[in-house]
């Protein structure tokens, strides 16, 4: 076999693995919502379900951390743990500083309340409606960006927002009735909290250990997020739940615990597949493929309903229900795909004064900057910027870099086409 054909096969299998990981993650995401619908039908108590979920989640991520901490090989006398295959920054049993934990704790407060609400809403909506409803978070994040950056939305952003809102509205109508209170709770309260959770998580993952220059790895972050949420949820459960619910946690909880373990296992697996895929390809492609969980939730809910008709509901709401669900899901995916794939990457090469190298952290923290590489050679810095449009990239990032006095020369380069990650 020639060297060229071996390379081509290797590149092809890498590509299939990347798409396979991202799509499997979408299937897993849709599956755990269906499993959660089943659990909600078995036990009508969102507080007990949330508590059991976080207990199961902590058990799974804790066991996973132990497995990933196993050293597999040695490089220059240093033991390399298995987890580095998933995330190269993985540091087993690393305790992050309070600067990170404070964001994780804040996120945990909202995750805890959001989970209770999620199980409450699963009593109202089947999984095929719940999946599009959960996509609304991206709209809050976009609007937050427009307000904070004092910037106008691009046409693609407006189209994406309209498609997602219309899709969610049509999906909700597929039940045959429009429950305004439940839709308000899902869209405003649950998605509002999800947007805050995303912001807090982003703050936590932006931290960099100054001694090693390593950020917090995704597995350790997930571990602390789940454990913190379990602690906060346990406190809320002790304070808010009545004595019957406290007893019910052990009595009734035992009957659904293994199903909840399955749901949290699927959720954790989906998260791991995303981390692995991120090492191989573009975030925008992963986000696009992940959004397919919205449409996958329809056939998966139908299959679940066919196997367990009493436990997994599938609201048809009349003969047009399935058509409305499908149109709604397609609109949501169209909006999400548009937002994910419309991003452009811009490179900027710069020459800076000696003092300029001290400004790197400032440049790296600018909106849209995804990487700053310090170079040896003709240029000092190569800055990678991800933006929704070139104009936006100029307004939000390039103009600010040009304004730094130590930047002597800056040349922007637009990427017309690219391959790789």
């Amino acid at each position: 076999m020639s060297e060229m054909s071996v390379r081509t096969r290797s590149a092809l299998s890498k590509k299939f693995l990347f798409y396979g990981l991202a799509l499997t993650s979408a299937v897993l995401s849709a599956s755990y919502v269906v499993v959660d619908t089943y659990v909600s039908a078995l036990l009508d108590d969102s507080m007990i379900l949330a508590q059991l979920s976080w207990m199961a989640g902590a058990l799974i991520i804790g066991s996973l951390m132990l497995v990933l901490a196993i050293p597999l090989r040695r490089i220059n006398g240093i033991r390399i743990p298995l987890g580095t295959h998933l995330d190269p920054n993985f540091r087993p049993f690393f305790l992050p500083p309070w600067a990170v934990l404070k964001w994780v704790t804040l996120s945990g407060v909202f995750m805890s309340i959001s989970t209770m609400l999620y199980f409450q809403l699963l009593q109202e909506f089947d999984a095929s409606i719940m999946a599009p409803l959960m996509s609304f978070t991206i709209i809050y994040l976009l609007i937050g960006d427009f307000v904070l950056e004092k910037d106008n939305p691009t046409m693609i952003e407006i189209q994406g927002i309209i498609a997602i809102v219309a899709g969610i509205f049509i999906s909700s109508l597929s039940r045959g009735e429009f429950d305004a209170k439940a839709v308000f709770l899902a869209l405003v309260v649950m998605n509002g909290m999800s947007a805050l959770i995303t912001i807090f998580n982003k703050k936590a993952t932006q931290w960099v250990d100054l001694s090693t220059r390593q950020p917090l790895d995704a597995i350790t972050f997930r571990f602390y997020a789940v454990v913190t949420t379990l602690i906060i949820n346990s406190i809320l459960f002790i304070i808010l739940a009545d004595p019957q619910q406290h007893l019910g946690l052990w009595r009734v909880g035992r009957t659904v615990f293994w199903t909840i373990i399955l749901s949290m296992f699927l959720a954790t697996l989906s998260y791991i597949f995303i981390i692995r895929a991120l090492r191989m390809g573009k975030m925008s492609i992963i986000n696009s493929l992940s959004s397919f969980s919205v449409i996958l939730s329809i056939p998966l809910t139908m299959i679940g309903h066919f196997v367990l008709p009493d436990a997994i509901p599938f609201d048809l709401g009349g003969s047009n229900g399935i058509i409305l669900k499908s149109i709604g899901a397609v609109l949501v995916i169209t909006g999400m795909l548009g937002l994910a794939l419309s991003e452009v990457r811009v490179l900027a090469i710069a020459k800076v004064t000696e003092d300029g190298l001290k400004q790197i952290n400032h440049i790296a923290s600018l909106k849209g900057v995804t990487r700053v590489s310090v170079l040896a050679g003709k240029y000092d810095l190569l800055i990678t910027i991800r933006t929704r449009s070139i104009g936006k990239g100029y307004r939000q990032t390039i103009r600010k870099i040009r304004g730094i006095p130590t930047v002597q020369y800056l040349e922007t380069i637009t990427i017309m086409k690219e391959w790789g990650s």
Partner: protein
Amino acid sequence: MISAYILIDVKKGHTVKVVELLKQVDEIELLSVVTGEYDIIIRIKVQELDELFDIMVNKIDSIEGVNETVTSIVEKDFK
């Protein structure tokens, strides 16, 4: 591991052919066709400088249509 950016100036009309040949180089982790002074920018990852030299001489500079290259080794990546 050593990472480096290579800025490549390509002869007029050779871009597609050069890109196709560069796509066969396993060590290239990012390949971008760009506007501006250079036509292609690649990010390459190698174990040691010797390997970078081999790739530059045998796999990049030898491609017909490659006019000029500027190699910049990454000292540190932020983010």
